């Protein structure tokens, strides 16, 4: 820990750190911290490269990470939608500390809004449906949260679990919502066909351009999954930015304080109920968005896509990755969504292996794959203090 590293001139030390602007809520991934030592242009170039690489993944089809038994673009989209869900659930579970076992309910409401109003009962435009889906899920989050958030922690788990099941069963048993047959012809995002991008093909470690296998940018068709992935990835970046903004504000602090000690937070002037509701609504917002994207990629939804098991997988993604750390939950979502697709070779053993993996991860990485800043922050503080001391010495 950092004891004994006090700077000699505290006045100027603190003044300086104020001048450096908000460094509150240190929340950078391990990678970013290593990168942060580099000069700024290099850093931006690296980040830019990483972003480009992420977008190019479905075209690159890199042998080791690409899925041999199923379409890589489709897997990437699934992973992306899990990442989105995990980011949303992280606000509820990681920041505000509310165990929501019915998160799939929001996912379902988002998907059903798009499907019912876009195909089954009306043919509204996709551009209208997405905001509507998000609006409906946010409202449903508030409606669910308002009565139930007064219920104590563990009870919330079972109440939300019930909510998720009620949503699914209602869809399953209501003719107007398509019942078990589901809904076909869900509107896809409008296409803007600009240009074609070829995929790579690999033989060993060398790559070739495969001119017969092209993705049209930006054509949201039936078979080519890459554009959907790009769309989801873009949404993820937007949500990541928003998540960061909220996290570094009064709102993020209020969530965290509420999770740490609700009574103390309330007595320090935090309207905890309001903030819990806000967390619930924000989580619902993102869950609904993810569901809406899922439905418009899929073109077809039925109640089976929204099983209780999915809620549990979502929670597993957040906790395995490290609840409270956005990079952690992203990694968790990748683990939960990608590994089973990558290792289809296990066939019927997949779930057994997955269960055992959860067990092992929980027991040997209880703080998550990328723990929420706590442990890492101590290091960061050390470095900061050193920097401050140097600065103070020079002054």
């Amino acid at each position, binding site marked *: 820990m950092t004891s004994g590293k006090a700077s000699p001139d505290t006045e100027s030390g603190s003044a300086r750190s104020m001048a450096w602007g908000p460094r509150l809520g240190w929340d950078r991934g391990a990678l970013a911290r290593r990168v942060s030592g580099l000069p700024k242009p290099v850093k931006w170039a690296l980040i830019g490269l990483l972003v480009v690489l992420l977008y190019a993944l479905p075209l690159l089809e890199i042998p080791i990470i690409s899925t041999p038994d199923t379409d890589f673009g489709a897997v990437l989209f699934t992973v992306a939608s899990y990442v989105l869900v995990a980011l949303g659930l992280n606000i509820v*579970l990681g920041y505000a500390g509310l*165990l929501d076992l019915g998160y799939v309910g929001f996912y379902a409401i988002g998907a059903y809004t798009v499907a019912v109003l876009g195909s089954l009962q009306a043919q509204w435009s996709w551009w209208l449906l997405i905001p509507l889906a998000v609006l409906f899920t946010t409202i449903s989050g508030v409606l669910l949260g308002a*009565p*139930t958030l*007064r*219920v*104590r922690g*563990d*009870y919330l*788990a*079972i*109440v939300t*679990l*019930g*909510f998720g*099941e*009620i949503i699914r*069963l*209602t869809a*399953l*048993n209501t003719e107007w919502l398509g019942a078990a047959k589901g809904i076909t012809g869900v509107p896809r995002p409008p296409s803007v066909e600009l240009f074609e991008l070829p995929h790579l093909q690999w033989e060993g470690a060398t790559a070739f351009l495969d001119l017969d296998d092209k993705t049209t940018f930006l054509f949201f068709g039936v078979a080519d999954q890459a554009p959907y992935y790009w769309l989801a990835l873009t949404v993820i970046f937007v949500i990541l930015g928003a998540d960061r903004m909220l996290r570094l504000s009064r709102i993020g602090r209020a969530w965290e304080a509420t999770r740490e000690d609700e009574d103390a937070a309330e007595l320090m002037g935090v309207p905890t109920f309001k903030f819990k509701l806000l967390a619930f609504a924000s989580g619902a917002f993102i869950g609904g968005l993810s569901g809406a994207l899922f439905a418009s990629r899929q073109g077809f939804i039925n109640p089976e896509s929204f099983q*209780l098991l999915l809620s*549990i997988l979502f*929670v*597993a993604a957040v*906790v*395995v990755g490290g*609840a409270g750390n956005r990079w952690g939950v992203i990694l968790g979502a990748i683990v939960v969504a990608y590994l089973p697709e990558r290792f289809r070779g296990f066939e*019927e*053993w997949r*779930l*057994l292996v*997955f*269960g*055992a*993996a*959860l*067990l*092992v*991860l*929980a*027991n040997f990485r*209880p*703080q998550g794959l990328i723990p929420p800043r706590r442990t890492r922050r101590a290091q960061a503080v050390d470095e900061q203090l050193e920097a401050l001391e140097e600065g103070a010495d020079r002054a």
Partner: protein
Amino acid sequence: MSFLINNFVELTVTGLVLGAVYGLVALGYTLVYGVLQLINFAHSEVWMFGSFAAVWVTVAVGVAPGSALPVVIGVLLLALLAAMTVSGGVALLLERVAYRRLIRLDAPKLVALISAIGASFALAEIMGLRDRIVGWFGLRDDLDPYVRSARDNTRFRNPLETEGLFTVGGYTVTNVDVIIIVSAVVMMIALDQFIRRTRTGKGIRAVAQDSEAAALMGVNRNRIIRATFLVGGIMAGAAALLYLMRFGVTRWNAGFLLGVKAFTAAVLGGIGNVRGALLGGFVLGLAENYGSALIGSEWRDVVAFLLLVVILLFRPTGLLGESLGRARA
């Protein structure tokens, strides 16, 4: 509505039978929650293993229906013993593999939940793949009656034939109905007394109330935790046999839904409250039956969950409150 009234007795009795099973499984959730404040997600698998133990015993003994009464009772007791042993054993295994390390590390509750979810998946899949697993050891054919159609329903060869005993309100109450309800109540009373009077039971209450203080008073917390899992497992084993007597069939993934319902029952009654578990089970069983009768079976789970939400809103700690630690147990 008239349908509900006309068949009130039948719906009530069958609801109570279902509720008794929920209640016995709910005990496992409630005990572990009372002591550790953890949702033991894998408890449903404890029950499922017990149900298979009971099935296998009847397969091994191979008793035909309609045997003499002493034989029937003997086989049922044997099945009960097997189910309790296996369920208790799996519960202890679970404590060892999924919980002990995390409890020692004082890890967040959520992590223990994930650990239990992982254990639950693994246990269910092990049962669902048992034909493959015994295949590794070349025992596939030798064990065929036990591992056949591993991913399908497995029938319990019930040595006891269902017989009507007496008729009330147009419904003939069967021997199975009576056995299940009476056993559940008797076991609940026994458990209640166990927790109130025995040394271990008092230890469970002490740890539930204040685990640090209990440790200072010389209670071995780890031993008490193991005892809690064991007792919950034994109850689940009993529930497994009763379930089979009524519903006749088990399968590798049957635990999941039952577990969700039993956990709901535990919360309904007041989690951590032993009597509340049985009451919650009965209320849930009845609500499901009445609800189905009123608006159709497809809405029964919706009815069950709505009931839960409503009860929690008006009684935030369940019907009887949470009180494993308190003297009322």
